[in-house]
């Protein structure tokens, strides 16, 4: 079974090839079959591989498979090799599983779109690239997947290419992430130059041997990898692309910009955890970046009008949690949050898509309302998603994962107290903006009529994801609540378990949990207070001087877009607009000089044959004179 591993990324690639080369001639039904089928088969193979993987768990923590040697020189040997361990299996399972559900959902969501085959081709390519990213045995292959998902993200954001602003958003996404990618690439150059290998396993072992903790080289490499991760995962300061990326179709946002691709940065840092452990300062930066992004995105999510932008900022915020967890060394907690986040965020996006679908592509939440009765399926699933995101205690998955992170931040030797306070504030804000959405969209008066619930192909993924959003949390229950730990030990094969700071006992954990619970519930309650009544308290709040300052500030994502516009984009355009060939002007001087001489010398060409004869004679005389002298 294990040797079927290579099929997991290859099958979606095959699907892509079929659809890209022949998609226009296939019926929609067949396209849907190919598109979903390839990912579905991948998911099945993942399950088969998983069975064997878990069987052989104790003695075989990883499995390698090489297809062929990709780059084969005497200095560098890089294989197209897959590496399956607990971490990558988790990622693969999420990608194929949720990927399949989203593909299924898309068959209906895009059923009246012209680019049906194109859409599924891109989606399949994305899944293939993402699987390559997580299964890669070496950093170069990882980079292949890394760039591949970036490309697919670009293509899918700009899927409706006839709108120029979508194209701009797509370019923005690609270019901003490419800045991160380039830093990542430079990191690879340094790693290879220093360690002469790119294999992830070897890099980690060799780095630990070669570089002392806190050494400059380790710091530089870690910072470069971090910039790469930050670009991909839309964290500060490269976060600006994600809200605009919502231009893509909603399933795309669900798959790429929520569940999978944006968490690639988390995966990268977790993958290279030994390296980051060598650079404690950089790890601290990871935590700070996560915390700042978390707060920035949460506050921005509060005031957005577009339902998808709210979700986009919430994604940034949740990934901020993951970065925070990574930064404090809670590797498993970060990935646990990745798992639950993938479920509930995909669910939220799909449910939002369902709303948008029934409202004929209306995305402004101020034109929505009272959809609770018209779209019951959507409402309930959305509610579950929002509850999971806010961390409604005990029943939702989000609670368990967020709690784990907050507990880690509380107890980690690497963290500071203010980080925990910030994270707690984030939890409060999460509750607030999640339920702002719920109350705006599903409660209150009806503003836009919906044209009915979606069909089966959209409903099934919603329900499955809702179930997962409620249940996956039970994989890791803190021992204050009964103590079932499956996820942590599972990942501990790959990732080190976090050490708890001395002096942490059950009572402090319980206190911490109560604080988290309270802040989330406080957020939800405040949302109900603000947004449920007809005459909104919020409008008055916004009207105050403080509100007038903060609302536009938050709406613009803390002004980063405007800053970058001024600092980079306008100078760049000015540069390229005026960038004539200034080097060519240097040759212009030569040309002018030649012309100058030409005009003067051509006067000697009188056209009179006797003049020529005379000059020849004079020339000869002068030569003779020279010889005579």
């Amino acid at each position: 079974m294990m040797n079927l591993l290579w099929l997991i990324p290859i099958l979606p690639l095959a699907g892509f090839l079929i659809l890209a080369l022949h998609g226009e001639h296939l019926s929609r039904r067949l396209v849907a079959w190919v598109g979903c089928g390839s990912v579905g088969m991948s998911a099945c193979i993942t399950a088969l591989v998983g069975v064997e993987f878990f069987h052989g768990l104790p003695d075989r923590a990883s499995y390698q498979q090489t297809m062929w040697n990709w780059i084969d020189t005497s200095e560098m040997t890089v294989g197209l090799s897959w590496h399956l361990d607990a971490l990558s299996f988790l990622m693969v399972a999420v990608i194929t599983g949720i990927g399949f559900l989203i593909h299924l959902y898309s068959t209906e969501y895009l059923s009246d779109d012209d680019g049906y085959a194109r859409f599924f081709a891109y989606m399949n390519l994305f899944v293939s690239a993402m699987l390559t990213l997580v299964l890669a045995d070496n950093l170069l292959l990882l980079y292949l997947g890394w760039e591949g998902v970036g490309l697919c993200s670009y293509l899918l954001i700009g899927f409706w290419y006839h709108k120029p602003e979508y194209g701009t958003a797509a370019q923005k996404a690609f270019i901003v992430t490419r800045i991160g990618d380039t830093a990542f690439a430079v990191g690879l150059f340094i790693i290879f130059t220093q360690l002469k290998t790119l294999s992830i396993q070897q890099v980690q072992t060799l780095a630990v041997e070669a570089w002392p903790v806190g050494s400059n080289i380790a710091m530089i490499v870690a910072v470069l990898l971090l910039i790469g991760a930050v670009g991909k995962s839309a964290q500060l300061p490269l976060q600006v692309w994600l809200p605009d990326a919502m231009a893509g179709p909603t399933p795309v946002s669900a798959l790429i910009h929520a569940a999978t691709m944006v968490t690639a940065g988390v995966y990268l840092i977790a993958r290279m955890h030994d390296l980051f452990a060598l650079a404690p300062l950089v790890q601290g930066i990871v935590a700070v970046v996560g915390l700042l992004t978390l707060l920035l995105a949460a506050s921005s999510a509060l005031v957005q009008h577009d339902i998808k932008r709210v979700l986009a900022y919430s994604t940034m915020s949740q990934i901020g949690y993951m970065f925070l967890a990574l930064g404090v060394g809670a590797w498993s907690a970060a990935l646990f949050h990745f798992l639950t986040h993938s479920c509930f965020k995909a669910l939220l996006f799909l449910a939002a898509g369902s709303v948008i679908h029934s409202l004929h592509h209306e995305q402004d939440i101020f034109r929505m309302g009272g959809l609770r009765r018209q779209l019951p399926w959507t409402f309930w699933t959305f509610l579950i998603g929002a509850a999971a995101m806010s961390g409604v205690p005990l029943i939702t998955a989000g609670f368990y994962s967020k709690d784990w992170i907050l507990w880690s931040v509380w107890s980690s030797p690497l963290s500071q107290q203010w980080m925990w306070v910030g994270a707690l504030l984030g939890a409060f804000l999460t509750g607030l903006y999640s339920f702002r959405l719920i109350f705006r969209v599903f409660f209150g008066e009806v503003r836009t009529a919906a044209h009915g619930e979606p069909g089966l192909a959209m409903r099934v993924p919603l329900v499955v994801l809702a179930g997962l959003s409620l249940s996956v949390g039970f994989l890791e229950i803190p021992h204050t609540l009964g103590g079932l730990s499956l996820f942590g030990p599972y990942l501990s094969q790959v990732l080190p378990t976090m050490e708890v700071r001395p002096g942490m006992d059950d009572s402090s954990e319980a206190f911490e949990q109560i604080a988290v619970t309270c802040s989330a519930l406080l957020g939800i309650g405040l949302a109900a207070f603000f947004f449920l009544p007809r005459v909104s308290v919020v409008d008055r709040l916004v009207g105050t001087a403080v509100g007038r300052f903060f609302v536009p500030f938050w709406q613009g994502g803390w002004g980063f877009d405007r800053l970058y516009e001024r600092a980079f984009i306008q100078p760049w355009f000015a540069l390229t607009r005026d960038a004539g060939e200034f080097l060519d002007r240097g040759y212009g001087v030569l040309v002018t000089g030649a012309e100058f001489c030409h005009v003067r010398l051509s006067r000697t060409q009188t056209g009179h044959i006797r003049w020529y004869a005379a000059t020849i004679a004079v020339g000869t005389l002068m030569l003779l004179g020279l010889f005579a002298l």
Partner: protein
Amino acid sequence: MPMTLWLLILIPMLAAPLSWMGQQWSRHAARWIALGALSLDFLLALVLWSQGPPGSASGHGSWLVESQTSWIPRWGISLHLGLDGLSLVLILLTAFLGIIAIIASWTDIQNRVGFFHCNVLLALGGVIGVFLAIDLILFFFFWEFMLVPIYLLIAVWGHANRRYASFKFFLFTQAGSLLLLVAMITMAFLHQQATGRPSFDYADLMGLTLTREMAWWLALAFFIAFVVKLPAPPFHTWLPDTYTEAPTGVSIILAGLLAKTGAYGLLRYTVPMFPEIMSEFAPFAMGLGAAGILYGAVLACSQTDLKRLIAYSSLSHMGFILLGAFAMTELALQGVVMQLVAHGLSTGGLFLLAGALYERFQTRDMRQMGGLWKVIPRVASMALFFACASLGLPGLANFIGEFLVLFGSYSVQPIITILASIGMVMAAIYSLGMMQRTFFGQLRETRSIPDLSNVAFGTLLLMAVLQVWLGLYPRPVLATTKPVVDALIQSASLPAQASHSVPVMPSTLFTSQANTP
């Protein structure tokens, strides 16, 4: 067996007049003759490739196939051809891109068809000659030989501003050639000083001992002569005009092959002949390469003319070649070879598509395009593919080239390499900007426009498949050129055979003839 080398050169050259005459028989006869000749050449090169033992280690002067006939023995000039992995790969590329260029010209060129193909074949014969000749005079002969047909191709069949472009091209390349000629003759004289016998043979001149000052000047001449052709700033200004004004097929040849002759010259002559000088010179040359990458990319971003954009992107890609050639590490040199092939394919594809767009809209101005994906999805999807190749998407051949170069250069010049890597971001900006302005956005065109024909689509698909193949399995190219790369590195690491022992004074250069036997 040695005759096959001459066959490689002579097949296109002999087919050239034939295809000119073929015009009288039927409209397509010239095209078919040219196509047949190049296919034959390609097959021949493939046969050589399949026979050659690419794995065998060989230093300089040990060639896979070699052919030497005396020509002008008094001046040490002989008809000396040699084939090694590098030239084999480049000849394969030449024949392949030649075929592509002829297919690209199938509908594009309608007047003086026979003469056009005659010129194309002559130029390609010259290019192959350049890749094979290892006698300097013979090399120079082919080097000059390919220029005239190319000049004619631009001046006769080019776009509106063709006269300016063709003159500029000719002047720049001629100036470079002049330097080359002077340096070659000087070397032959120096050889006579040292051994009493003038020689233009590669192997002889490789072993020549030079004073430092002399070597500097010669190396500089060899460097500039080839860099003009490559090109890199500040010698590149002929490139955008020439690439833009040339007809599609010729643009493919210019970018895909002519630029490669410059790179080939650097690898074959400049670097191994003056290893000491080059190691001192390397930071400067690599800086020039990085400057080319960035300069080309910035200018590519500012273009509105599609072909000009591609031309500047080509300049940017050539910077990687300069960067890698002077890094003198195995990885960088392997990357250079890969980049040579990959750039030929990617830029060739883009020029083909630009030609297809020009044929349909009679303009190269991207401001007048937009939203074309809807009307011509085949063109658009292929353009997307080649734009991705051009921005160095992993899994495609350009990525292998660029990354190997960067990997190899980083260990030598980290700062320059990091600067060069910024070019990757810029490549994304101009490639995607091109896609956005041309194929995405609002559709302006209301006429119904035919999409790519099956032949053109198939051609592009073939190039795309090659890109993917070499991007995922570059071993065939890397293994073929490995002996050459090894030898290059060896020559760089050996400090020129104890050079300063018998210095030849430059002051005696043109005087003493006494020791002629």
